[in-house]
């Protein structure tokens, strides 16, 4: 177990380094001079050259990369060109909002998704099954920006129940959480339903019935834990994608999170900031996968031993 965790950790570091290198190279081969963009139209060539040298952008690319990695290891991701503040500071500030939104969306998605999935499986082909699966289909197929704007229109503009944007109070998180989480809720509900239906056909369910377990006990003690194995994997993946910043949701609801920071970095050709957000996203995804693997091992004794 320890060995496999160590192996996973080393793999994660390699993935991070590889992604950092790819982002680094890509940002430098795209056409356009970031310094010129930053200085504006009226900057003269001398100033641009001096600035380029000051930022170290005139160095060979491997030197730049080595410097970037060494700095990053010390927690220094450079200074944002467009905002003049350290990237780490900007991201730390934005991460709070992203985290709150991600947790809210994940809570919504999983509580609703798992509950609907269970009910749909138990009432297979019943009214609730069709209703919940219809909602999950909507969630899976509607684009986030559309859901977001529909929600704003109905609940904020028409009914005035909730704020239309911004996160000044907890109420501000409700609509974005639903907009962002509906999709995940839909896929979780479908996966829970199908795996639960599959598990309920297994022989050990008959065994549990044969020893006198009733339906609720069978569902909770025998079926659900087995059915949750693939669902956990999906949930861990969803968490990492939620945490790495919801570009569209954050933009539509004016939430200053990582996703919005990334959009600003792209439009401002802010190389350090873009590198920072991209690296952060990678880190979160890698950690999410690590989490999924470890959770799987906790829940499934068969994997625990083999690992």
């Amino acid at each position, binding site marked *: 177990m320890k060995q496999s965790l160590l192996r996973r950790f080393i793999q994660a570091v390699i993935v991070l380094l590889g992604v950092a290198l790819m982002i680094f190279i890509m940002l430098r081969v795209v056409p356009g001079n970031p310094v010129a963009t930053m200085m504006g139209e009226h900057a003269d060539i001398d100033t641009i050259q001096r600035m380029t040298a000051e930022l170290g952008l005139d160095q060979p690319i491997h030197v730049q990369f080595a410097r970037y990695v060494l700095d990053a290891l010390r927690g220094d991701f450079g200074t944002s060109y467009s905002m003049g503040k350290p990237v780490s500071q900007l991201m730390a500030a934005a991460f709070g909002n992203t985290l709150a939104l991600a947790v809210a969306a994940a809570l919504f998605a999983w509580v609703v998704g798992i509950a609907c999935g269970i009910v749909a499986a138990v009432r297979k082909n019943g009214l609730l099954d069709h209703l919940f699966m219809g909602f999950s289909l909507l969630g899976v197929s509607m684009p986030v920006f559309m859901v977001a704007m529909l929600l704003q229109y109905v609940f904020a503009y028409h009914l005035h129940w909730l704020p239309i944007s911004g996160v000044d109070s907890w109420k501000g998180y409700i609509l974005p959480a639903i907009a962002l989480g509906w999709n995940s809720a839909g896929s979780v509900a479908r996966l829970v339903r199908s795996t639960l239906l599959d598990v309920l056909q*297994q*022989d*050990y369910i*008959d065994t549990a019935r*044969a020893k*006198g377990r*009733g339906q609720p006990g069978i569902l909770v003690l025998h079926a659900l834990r087995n059915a949750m194995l693939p669902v956990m994997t999906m949930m861990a993946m969803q968490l990492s994608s939620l945490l790495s910043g919801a570009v569209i949701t954050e933009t539509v609801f004016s939430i200053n999170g990582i996703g919005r920071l990334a959009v600003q970095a792209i439009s401002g050709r802010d190389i350090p900031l873009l590198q920072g957000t991209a690296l952060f996203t990678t880190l979160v995804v890698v950690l999410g996968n690590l989490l999924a693997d470890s959770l799987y091992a906790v829940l499934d004794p*068969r994997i625990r031993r083999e690992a």
Partner: protein
Amino acid sequence: MEPMTLRAVGLCAGIPTQKGEIRAVNDVSIDVPAGSIVGIVGESGCGKSMTARAIMGLMRSPARMTGGEIWLNGRDIARLPERQRRALRGSEMSMIFQEPMTSLNPVMKVGRQVAEAVRLHANVSRQEADRRAVEMFEAVGISDAASRARCYPHQLSGGLRQRVMIAMAMVCRPKLLIADEPTTALDVTVEAQILRLMRNLCDAGTSILLISHNLGVIAQLCDYVYVMYAGRIVEQAGVIKLFDHPAHPYTRGLLNAVSSLRRGGERLDTINGVVPNLLRLPEGCSFSLRCDACEARCAQEMPELREIAPGHKARCHLAEREAWS
């Protein structure tokens, strides 16, 4: 009359389909006297497993029981509400299945799974339930019981898992154990051990209803045998009588298929044709299409299950003439 642990009378079970109801179990009556092992034998799809499930009340939807009485220890349980029926499962009657590999919950320790059965029927602490589970493990011949109880199913061999299943079924000391092909998935040496264990259980007072397609297992273990074909009982007799004087052509066919192997003949004796579609059974005897001795009336008239000798019944028009020939 000897006391009956189980008496099923006129059991019917079916699966509704769009083309009509498949009558998988048709007017099946089975007696399991106290302290005996009774077998049901027949090929795949003849309704033997469905009969067992009907008795246990473990039909898988859409299959359902459509008629009959089930007397367990002198009480008709067929029409009990599900809650009361459930209370009997695991305590007065229990069941083990064909596949020990998949019949245990993979994410639960085996000791816990046995203890669960205890806790469902006895008001005891978790520790006490665990203790009884380990005790039962020892009783069914699992060595190193305490540490095996902390294993997960995938860490045990097939034979051990089936022992765990038997321990789970027996831990509340039920009067009736239904074993549905308990050794089919096991290799022969393990099979012999499991059969011996079942014999011991029976000697200790448990009545067993054994379902098998394996005539060897039936011959070795059972006191009395029912032969099923296409959802009906076609012959029933004490085990020695059945093997020495089979009256129904189907039973004879089954026995010939085995004994031709033993004789070392060139070709394996088989029964002609295939099992009939349960939705389109022939008008007369279900076996008529495959029967070598089929006469005109066999194709028109379904024979009754008639007594042809004391304790020996057969569902064949020609049985009397041939039984002692």
